[in-house]
């Protein structure tokens, strides 16, 4: 399956991309992260501390156990700092 992966703030800076289309068979968000961190040092650095990573699946805040079946867009970012 092909998913669009988006990165924001320092996650984006460490990965070195704001968005990519990615072919994966990962069943969950956690599985997807496990694939990504093996790709290069940037991904490994971005996902080194998972307690500092938030995820949205199809633009809804989600968690690492969330299934990816039929999902189109996954976004990774640090804890939000609005307001």
């Amino acid at each position, binding site marked *: 399956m092909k998913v669009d992966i*988006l990165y924001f703030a320092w996650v984006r800076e460490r990965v070195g991309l704001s968005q990519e289309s990615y072919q994966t068979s990962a069943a969950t968000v956690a599985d997807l992260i496990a694939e990504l961190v093996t790709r290069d040092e940037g991904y490994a650095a971005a996902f080194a501390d998972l307690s500092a990573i938030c995820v*949205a699946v199809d633009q809804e805040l989600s968690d690492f156990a969330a299934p990816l079946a039929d999902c189109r867009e996954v*976004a990774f970012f*640090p804890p*939000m*700092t*609005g*307001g």
Partner: protein
Amino acid sequence: MSARVQEAAFDAAAEAAAFQSAVTQSGAVVSFTGVVRDDTGSLDYMFIEHYPGMTLAALEKFADQARVKFGLEKVLVIHRYGRLQSGEAIMMVVTAARHRKDAFAGADYLMDYLKSRAPFWKKEVSQGSATWVAAKDQDEAALAEWSPNSAAKES
């Protein structure tokens, strides 16, 4: 439409006045404006990144939640992104309710959600070096107090 996400500056006083003039059944209007702060006197600018596909829908959802939870007649949320200078308004929340407690609580609730659940990220650029603002534990704790299992803030 009760939320706006924009790069351009807004006039908080004019927004509050327009909001109030459209209110018909409320005896209380509360407005809060968040302003870029320069604690060290060395801030070049603040940069706010956001998630364009998600931000507006998230703000609309929080506004709706606040409207229902506190019986608000009207809600407005404005949040900016992009490059902001010290002293500029970042965001604004306005609530209208029959009585002040609900108007204040609705604004407070919205602020807690905007701080920790709206997809914005602040970066401070000072003397050429950039630092992402870290999320605060106290903001997360404030949000948790609105959950049904918490006795705090519910009177």
